[in-house]
């Protein structure tokens, strides 16, 4: 699979139906599963979730928009997340970001013109002793996700190669 599944209300209902019995506490697990399947939380999913969990649409929207992970528009099939937190800053995260920008033309927060790759900042992958680090993920990545640490030199170039592939 190189792309996310396309949304239909029927597929959404299957996901929601499995978990709705737990009530409101199932909201984040439902959103995670919808996003994992479709690459975002489609606007049409919000009223369906609200009804299933007996919440208002505004309430569900408030949760979707609160968490950085949930997106309201489709995300690129490949996302390169560059850690920009302190441990990585101390070890050269800025140079990594510059090199990524040189090769992809993308700064953190940007998506390529063909929509295939997005570069994002992430705050800590827990690889602080082997900084700087990054994670490439998405259904277009072999194995779903690839981590890179002590980035610089050939290891960084290989990660970018896979990102722009």
């Amino acid at each position, binding site marked *: 699979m190189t792309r996310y599944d396309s949304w239909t209300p029927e597929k959404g209902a299957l996901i929601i139906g499995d978990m709705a019995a737990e*009530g*409101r*506490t*199932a*909201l*984040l*697990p439902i*959103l*995670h599963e919808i996003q994992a399947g479709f690459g975002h939380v489609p606007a049409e999913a919000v009223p369906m979730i609200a009804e299933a*969990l007996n919440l208002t649409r505004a309430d569900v929207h*408030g*949760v979707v928009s*609160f*968490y*950085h*992970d*949930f997106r309201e528009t489709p995300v690129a099939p490949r996302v390169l997340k560059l850690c920009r*937190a*302190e*441990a*990585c*800053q*101390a*070890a050269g995260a800025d140079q990594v970001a510059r090199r990524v920008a040189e090769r992809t033309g993308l700064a953190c927060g940007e998506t390529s013109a063909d929509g295939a790759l997005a570069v994002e900042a*992430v*705050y*800590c*992958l*827990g*690889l*602080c*002793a*082997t*900084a700087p*680090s990054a*994670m490439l*993920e998405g259904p277009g990545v072999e194995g779903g*996700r690839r*981590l*890179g*640490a*002590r980035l610089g030199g050939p*290891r960084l170039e290989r990660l970018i190669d896979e990102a722009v592939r």
Partner: protein
Amino acid sequence: MSVTIYLPKDAAALALGADEVAAELTRLARMAGRDLNLVRTGSRGLFWLEPMIEVATPAGRIAYGPVEASDVEGLVAAGLFEGGAHPLRLGPPAAIPFLARQTRLTFARTGIVDPASVEDYRAHGGWAGLERALELGPEGIVEEVVQSGLRGRGGAGFPTGVKWRTVAAAKAPQKYIVCNADEGDSGTYADRMIMEGDPFVLIEGMVIAGIAVGATRGYVYLRSEYPHAAAAFALALDEARRAGFLGARIGGSAHDFDIELRMGAGAYVCGEETALLDSIEGKRGQVRAKPPLPAHQGLFGRPTVINNVISLASVPFILAEGAAVYRDFGMGRSRGTMPIQLAGNIRFGGLYETAFGVTLGELVDEIGGGTASGRPVRAVQVGGPLGAYFPRALFDTPFDYEAFTAAGGLIGHGGVVVFDDTVDLRAQARFAMEFCAIESCGKCTPCRIGSTRGVEVIDRIGAGDPKQITLLRDLCETMKFGSLCALGGFAPYPVLSALDHFPEDFGVGAAGSAAAAE
């Protein structure tokens, strides 16, 4: 002839090519006609040596590292399978000085055992704490944890036993154990290492907590940035359930307990315990005003023990070996051991578990070997994005909750991030405010507005207006005392420590920023 090789599946080892090493080992063992038993462990935490492989020999395990896939052929030719000589040969891992100097209680098994095997865990002393807990019963367990002197390893340092006693005393039809695995502080990775390398110790700690306070349900709230930890822990939950360590009548006792793994969604503030509870409940992760304490009204309004991963993972040792053994380590009111995480621009980055009391300078210069860049160490941030920046002048500060507070900092979750002399402390202070602005839950004004104002004020200082320093100090004061939780309340630590210890980066003379601002 079969050969057993241990190779980490820890996220950091994977990031450095451990899977490629595994593939090469498998290929070359087959070519050599050897039956390879490849055990994927966690990491010992010697990250400058990862991927580090260990070969089982009659004389014990022999380590090699750091190994790249391209090294494997040469290693095999040099007699890797027999522990043969090679430039990457490190010898017995326990004799490596970084490891030999540690006191590993909580991390005793990490990097050694197969994290997917309940039986391997038992073979290395696992489940002994639970056995003793079942003998002691709820009151006895709580007393043991109180006596151990264990304080919350997540940052706040509140006595764990006291928290448990409160929940145990509460009357309610349902109680909960919540594990805070939302390790979001840069420089910290101890929780991740436990969940990937020794997940059963966390499960055992939670089961013991459940028995102690009369809770039958537990939740682990894990940050979404840790997909490998999630996979490893989910597998361990299945295995524990299958072996009867979770579910109904644990170990044949009258106690029921089960754990659900919940994923966060990229909100740093959910590491704050009440925001975390709201998130599990399906809400925006906003901080709750305290009181009521979670111990009285926590998850779903019920009495809840909420502890960090390392706090809970420290419990099995305390129960198995006794409170006194644990309490005998440490200094003052900081008892037992602390998994200190050396990170950033550091030569020997890794997990260093030791009794409280080691000085910051020993950690950075001796154990960590200074910077990886080879340049002088200029600043060290301890305790995550909300921790203070320490200059060399404070390197004699002992690792102890009270000593760090007295030095204007906090040890938090034990992360130590080293910066060399190229660091710009004004930029770091600005980052702290910016981070707080991005991650604020928005519930209280000092944090929500103050952090945004903080960025602006620091920018004005950078533009050459030192008078703004008075304003910055006022703002920090307001955030410190007016914020609802540690996000806004502690953001002044990195900002003020940068200003106090590195005034030259703010365009003020070392004579004193306050005087210069007059």
